C-alpha cells in the first residue's frame, strides 16, 4: 500500500466511523419527551385566558397558585418566583395608550426551547404536552431561563422557608422552576388551582381543557373566537391562548 492509497482508505474509514458515532448524537438533539406508552398520551392540555373578563386588581389566581405549589415569595424582586404573574402592557399602536393587565405564565410550547437546551433532560415535555421540570435531575445551570422567550422560568436563589401546602413538595435552593399546569392535580382528575380560584370568585377568565378534544371548552373558543398567542411568529407553538390581547 503506497502513501496515497493509505491516505484514501484511512480517510474513508475515519469518515465512516465519525458518521456512525455522530448520527445518533444528531438525532438525540430533539425535544426531550416522555415515553410513548404513558397513560397521558392522546391529551393536549391548553388554556384560554379571557383578558376582557380578567379584572386588573384581582389576584385570586396568583394567590391560589402560590399556595397550591408552595411558590417562593421573599418580597424582593431579585428572588421572587412567579409561576403566574400579571404585567401591565401598553399598546404602541392604539390611540388611547391605556394600560392592559395581562396574565403571564409558562406557555407550555409544542416546541419548548427550554427542553431543547436542558443538558440533563430535567426539563421535558410530557406526553400530554405539559412542559415539566424534574427537580431531582435539575443541576441549576439556568440554560432554560436563557432559552425561554417568555421569561417564564425562575430560579431558586434562596431556600424557601414557607410551606403552606404540605401535600406538595417545595423546591430547594439551586433549581429552576415554572408553571406545570398543576400536573399533580391533573393526574388526579382535578383542574389547575388558578382555574378553580378564578371560578370560585365567579369570574370566567381562565378556561382550561383538552385541545385534542373538539367538544372541550378551550377547543370551542380556539375554533370560534379570535384568539392570539404571544409571539406566534417564533414557532414555539404555545398552548396558552389569549382573548382580547
Amino acid at each position, binding site marked *: 500500500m503506497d502513501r496515497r492509497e493509505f491516505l484514501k482508505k484511512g480517510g474513508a474509514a475515519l469518515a465512516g466511523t465519525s458518521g456512525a458515532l455522530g448520527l445518533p448524537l444528531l438525532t438525540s438533539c430533539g425535544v426531550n419527551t*416522555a*415515553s410513548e*406508552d*404513558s*397513560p*397521558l398520551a392522546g391529551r393536549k392540555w391548553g388554556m384560554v385566558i379571557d383578558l376582557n373578563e380578567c379584572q386588573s386588581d384581582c389576584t385570586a389566581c396568583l394567590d391560589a397558585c402560590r399556595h397550591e405549589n408552595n411558590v417562593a415569595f421573599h418580597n424582593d424582586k431579585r428572588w421572587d418566583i412567579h409561576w403566574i404573574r400579571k404585567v401591565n402592557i401598553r399598546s404602541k399602536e392604539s390611540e388611547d395608550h391605556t394600560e392592559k393587565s395581562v396574565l403571564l405564565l409558562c406557555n407550555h410550547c409544542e416546541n419548548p426551547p427550554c427542553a431543547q437546551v436542558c443538558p440533563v433532560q430535567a426539563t*421535558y415535555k*410530557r*406526553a*400530554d404536552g405539559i412542559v*415539566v421540570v*424534574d*427537580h*431531582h435531575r435539575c443541576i441549576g445551570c439556568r440554560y432554560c431561563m436563557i432559552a425561554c422567550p417568555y421569561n417564564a422560568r425562575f430560579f431558586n436563589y434562596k*431556600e424557601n422557608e414557607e*410551606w403552606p401546602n*404540605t*401535600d406538595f*413538595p*417545595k*423546591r*430547594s435552593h439551586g433549581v429552576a422552576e415554572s408553571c406545570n399546569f398543576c*400536573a*399533580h392535580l*391533573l*393526574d*388526579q382528575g382535578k383542574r389547575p388551582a388558578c382555574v378553580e380560584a378564578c371560578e370560585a370568585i365567579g369570574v370566567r377568565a381562565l378556561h382550561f381543557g383538552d385541545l385534542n378534544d373538539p367538544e372541550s371548552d378551550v377547543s370551542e373558543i380556539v375554533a370560534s373566537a379570535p384568539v392570539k398567542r404571544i409571539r406566534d411568529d417564533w414557532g414555539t407553538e404555545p398552548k396558552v391562548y389569549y382573548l382580547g390581547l
Partner: protein
Amino acid sequence: MKLSTALRNKKLGVVVTILIVVMLLPFGSSAARFVLARDAEVPDVFLEMPLDYFNRCVEDTDYMRFRHMDLLKRLREEFIRDGKRGNVSLTKCRDCHTSRERFCNRCHEEASVILDCFGCHYYPEPDSVSQQLGT
C-alpha cells in the same frame, strides 16, 4: 547450577510471593467482609417499627430495608415523567413511620448516606413526633 544462583532464585521467589499476597489483601478482606456481613445479625438500627404495626408495607421488609432506594427511584420516574401516580409515594411513608429521625436518619447516618429528600418533601419534624410517641 551454582549454589549462589539457586539461593538468589529462592529469595526472588519469596519476594514475589509476598508481593502477590500484599496485592491480593484488599480483595481478600472485602470478600471476607461480604461473607461475614451476610451471616451477621441485622443491626439494632433496624428495630424501629411503625406505629401501625400490623399493616404491611408496600413490599417485604427485607426488600424495603435494602432496596427501598430502587423502588423510590422507579416510582419517581413513573410519577413525574409518565404521570402514573399510584397510592405509593414518599409522603405516604410518614403515615406509618412517624419519626423521620428514627426511621430514616438513624440508618443513613450509620451508612453515611446523605439524604436530601426532605428539603422539598414534607415529613413531620422529629420534635413533634417524639412528643406524640411520649419519648
